[in-house]
């Protein structure tokens, strides 16, 4: 248990995975707080979550309007100062892409259907099993990027999760990205829905444990 880790969960109007994410952080033993979208100071947090949902009603396009909220403006400074980790899940990933904190963009699933199911994913990070089963629940999860961006993603080893059976038409089966240089993770799958035994799937713990490890490592480096 890491009770010296401070986690923040940003809540926009329309966010609906904030409680799940909060509970997952609590399960990890982290000191967790909700951050309302008009907050401008994020310095005390070691990790900040942009949870799933429909921020600002997904008006114009998913994640589009959240990029103008004070909390996301502050998040840019947080990233620039390399203060801690940023994790965008589902709508949070869309917000990170719209904000250009991560490259590319999420478009409508090729099936035009809202997909809600558990999927097998291949991971690319130390400390995670080779494959994990996470829940997905999205209508706009088709990851798109141009060739130059994809080349950069490959060169920087940013692919974090890939679908084993691509459900939404994402290029290169991309389900999640990890900008290791800046500590930014974005993914469509929901690890926070795989924490408690009652959900019948606890693979999400692997992700949160990996994250705890990464935060601890970062904290050690800062102390030195």
């Amino acid at each position, binding site marked *: 248990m890491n009770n010296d880790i401070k986690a923040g969960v940003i809540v926009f109007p329309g966010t609906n995975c904030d409680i799940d994410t909060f509970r997952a952080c609590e399960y990890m033993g982290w000191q967790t707080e909700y951050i309302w979208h008009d907050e401008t100071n994020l310095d005390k947090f070691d990790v900040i979550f942009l949870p799933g949902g429909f921020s600002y009603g997904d008006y114009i396009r998913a994640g589009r*309007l959240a990029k*103008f909220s004070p909390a996301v403006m502050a998040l840019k400074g947080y990233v620039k100062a390399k203060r801690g980790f940023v994790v965008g899940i589902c709508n949070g990933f869309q917000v990170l892409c*719209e904000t250009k904190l991560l490259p590319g*963009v999420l*478009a*409508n699933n*090729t099936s035009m259907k809202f997909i809600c199911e558990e999927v097998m994913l291949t991971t690319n990070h130390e400390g995670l099993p080779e494959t994990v089963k996470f829940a997905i629940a999205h209508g706009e999860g088709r990851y*798109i*990027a141009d060739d130059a961006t994809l080349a950069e993603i490959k060169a920087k080893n940013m692919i974090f999760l890939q679908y084993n059976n691509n459900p939404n*038409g994402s290029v290169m089966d991309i389900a999640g990205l990890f900008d290791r240089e800046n500590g930014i993770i974005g993914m469509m799958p929901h690890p926070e829905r795989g924490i408690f035994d009652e959900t019948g799937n606890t693979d999400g713990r692997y992700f949160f444990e990996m994250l705890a490890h990464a935060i601890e490592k970062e904290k050690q480096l800062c102390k030195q």
Partner: protein
Amino acid sequence: MKKYKADVIVTLKDGVRDPQGAAVDTVLKRTGMEDMAHVQTGKFFTLTVSGEDEATAKAKLNAICEDVLSNPVLERYTIERFVEA
């Protein structure tokens, strides 16, 4: 300060798959209404922008289109109307 009325259409760039358009295409083909419709879907916005003169207002409108109304990674916008109000 002058005011201008603007209409903006945002569509997907060429080459970006448009599943909504494809679905409408399928219906048109299935019903025999049109075989070569190549439907593209998009969004329509109408708004008022202000500025000292036309050029300033137009520049502001372009910034609004790029920053707020569209995502240049996969969408493009066209200004259909720009008239003094």
